[in-house]
């Protein structure tokens, strides 16, 4: 007899039609899977009743059946004895190159001949971060299928808001390896908002403070009529609960006077450090003890006060992105309704206290901070898989950086501005620069700066087949469209002829958090320089447009309408303009363009008269009126 769940009114699915979907929080330290049962989102426990799955994979052998691994608690226990084959915090290595990951890593990274992907050398062979993550996902998939009694239709997997394209792609690849159909990747803070927002239904501005194992994210969200709008996001992808463990580790190493600890010992110290962090959330002191081998041991007390002194600088570091997110969202801390705490490290009382003081509000801790993200993902998965047709949730996200295209003179014209909610479509009209121009190169860029050279190039494509027209007559409509998954497509269409061309790009391609951050910083500090540079470039472009137009006119009508002295005068003034335009003085160029206008006014008048005469030739006055 099948086990049934309660559906929404009128939503009972036909037998064998109910689609099973889960939300997965693939965390740095721990992972979780959740699903909706009778309208109730819950994390799924393993056969021992444990909800958390430590994101730890121990590689044992590699045979015909693939890797033999232990995942979760057993692997975590084995980590001290088998540190080189037991991979922890693999999320930090997802989509990263060798250079980024060597620091703070005990593993033996290698790259194989034909690939740049760093691999960890283990007893079972060299494994990539994607393969390690796939093992974690496989374990969660197996658990869900047992608990839900059937095959999964799909899963929503959460990623940090600042994960770049390579990191997101790596996460998708891991899911594919694990045999999961990814319905969508959603940002962790957004998932947390879904979990909280829909449960409590309170409208207003919410801050999601997510201090996970390996990443810190701050998101400012606005909830109106059941719709979440992400006002801004900021974060630090290299700061998390693990770092709290690391400062305690460093403290232990210093106190115990250990030089260059062996991997086994370092692993033991890390375990002790983590236990200390957890214990000191509820207790005044904690006794740390280490087994140093050779029947030697070390132990010391760590007080809560001393612990707080150690971690305070790290927590203060989280407040910088908080400030930036507030500024980006254009709000003051008093506008904030509440602060949602996510991630196991937000159990540390000092974190709650400092965050509460910063936002002048008592942080929300209603839901288990470890489970919030998975629960939100499960709700979203249920909607995406089609089990809920009414009360659809509309999730709005934002673009981290502005998107635009290159215009004449190497200037960036922004089409979609930073922090615009997606999905979005924006169109802008451009025109041709030269007479008879039949093609246009479209260069899509990302960034906040005014000059193309300071922005990140995303894609280039060409619009061909524009009918020959005078400069400025063609109307080329360029449309930027970003879908709900964050994929950008750009299309260009010449309106009079209907010729079209388009391209699809991934907006965050190749940008790491650090790069996004430094691009943002640059745009603030170079704002005035950029404006000056822009003005100069615009003037230079105008000058060359004038030169272009005059040369064309001289070519066509010079002989007919001008004396040779007049022609010489115009040619001389054109040469002067060309020379001045090469210098970097916007004002001089501007004055010279005005001077050229005066010199050529008579010529322009004669051309106009001439073309009117041609138009009127052979027509009677009556026909014209």
């Amino acid at each position, binding site marked *: *007899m*099948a*086990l*049934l*769940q309660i*559906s929404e*009114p009128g939503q009972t699915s036909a037998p*064998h039609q109910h689609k099973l979907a889960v939300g997965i929080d693939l965390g740095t330290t721990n992972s979780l899977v959740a699903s909706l049962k009778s*309208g109730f989102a819950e994390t799924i426990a393993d056969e021992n009743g444990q909800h958390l799955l430590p994101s730890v994979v121990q590689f044992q052998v590699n045979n015909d059946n693939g890797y033999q691994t232990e995942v979760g608690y057993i692997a975590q226990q084995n980590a001290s004895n088998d540190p080189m084959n037991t991979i922890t915090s693999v999320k930090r290595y997802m989509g990263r190159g060798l250079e980024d990951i060597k620091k703070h890593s005990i593993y033996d990274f290698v790259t194989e001949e034909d690939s740049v992907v760093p691999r960890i050398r283990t007893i079972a062979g060299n494994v990539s971060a994607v393969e390690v993550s796939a093992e974690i996902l496989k374990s969660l998939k197996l658990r869900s299928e047992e608990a839900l*009694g059937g095959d999964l239709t799909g899963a929503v997997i959460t990623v940090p808001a600042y994960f770049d394209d390579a990191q997101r792609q790596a996460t998708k690849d891991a899911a594919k390896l694990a045999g999961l159909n990814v319905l969508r990747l959603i940002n962790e803070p957004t998932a947390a908002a879904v979990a909280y927002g829909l449960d409590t239904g309170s409208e207003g501005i919410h801050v999601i403070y997510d201090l996970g194992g390996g990443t810190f994210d701050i998101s400012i969200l606005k909830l109106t009529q059941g719709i979440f709008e992400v006002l801004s996001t900021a974060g630090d992808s290299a700061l998390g609960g693990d770092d709290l463990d690391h400062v305690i580790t460093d403290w232990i190493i210093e106190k115990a006077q250990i030089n260059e600890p062996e991997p086994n010992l370092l692993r033991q110290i890390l375990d002790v450090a983590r236990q200390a962090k957890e214990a000191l959330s509820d207790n005044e002191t904690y006794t740390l003890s280490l087994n140093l081998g050779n029947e030697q041991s070390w132990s010391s007390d760590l007080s809560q006060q001393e612990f707080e002194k150690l971690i305070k600088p790290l927590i203060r570091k989280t407040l910088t992105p908080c400030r930036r997110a507030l500024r980006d969202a254009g709000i003051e801390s008093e506008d904030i309704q509440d602060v949602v705490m996510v991630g196991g490290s937000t159990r540390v009382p000092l974190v709650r206290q400092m965050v509460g003081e910063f936002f002048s509000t008592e942080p929300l801790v209603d839901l288990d901070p470890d489970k919030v993200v998975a629960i939100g993902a499960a709700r979203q998965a249920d909607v995406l898989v089609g089990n809920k047709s009414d009360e659809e949730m509309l999730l709005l996200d934002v673009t981290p950086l502005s998107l635009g295209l290159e215009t004449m003179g190497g200037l960036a014209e922004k089409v979609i501005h930073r922090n615009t909610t997606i999905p979005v479509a924006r169109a802008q009209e451009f025109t041709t620069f030269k007479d008879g121009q039949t093609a246009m190169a479209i260069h899509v860029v990302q960034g906040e700066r005014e000059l193309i050279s300071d922005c990140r190039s995303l894609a280039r494509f060409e619009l061909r087949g524009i009918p020959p027209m005078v400069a400025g007559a063609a109307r080329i409509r360029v449309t930027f469209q970003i879908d709900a998954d964050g994929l950008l497509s750009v299309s260009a269409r010449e309106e009079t002829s209907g010729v079209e061309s388009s391209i699809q790009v991934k907006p965050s391609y190749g940008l790491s958090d650090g790069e996004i951050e430094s691009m943002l910083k640059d745009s603030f500090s170079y704002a005035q320089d950029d404006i000056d540079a822009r003005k100069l470039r615009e003037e230079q472009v105008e000058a060359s447009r004038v030169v272009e137009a005059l040369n064309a006119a001289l070519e066509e009508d010079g002989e007919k309408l001008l004396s040779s002295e007049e022609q010489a005068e115009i040619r001389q003034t054109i040469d002067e303009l060309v020379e001045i335009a090469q210098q970097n003085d916007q004002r001089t160029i501007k004055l010279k363009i005005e001077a050229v206008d005066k010199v050529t006014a008579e010529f322009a008048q004669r051309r106009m008269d001439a073309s009117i005469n041609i138009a009127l030739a052979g027509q009677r006055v009556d026909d014209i009126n």
Partner: protein
Amino acid sequence: MAITLTAAAAEHVMRFIENRGKGEALRLGVKTNGCSGMAYVLEFADKVEEEDNVFEDQGVKIIVDPKSLIYIDGTELDYGKEGLNEGFKFNNPNVKDSCGCGESFNV
């Protein structure tokens, strides 16, 4: 005859309704579908239709439309676990046979 609930089923129904935040009754019924003829309907109920039969057991209000009642009268709704999976079961005395998985049945 009537529709009844086991204690475990009643406890879970109450919890789910409370969590949902609206609606106060549970609708049971059947619809023609599935590999063996008919399938059960188990839904939250926001309103009671005029012709509906209303039962109450252990504080849970149960609504059944008259057509469905013919097929499920005397049913006891149970809640159980099978391994990691858990959910509701219809112990329906009218059933002659059901499909392998039990999601649909025949009377």
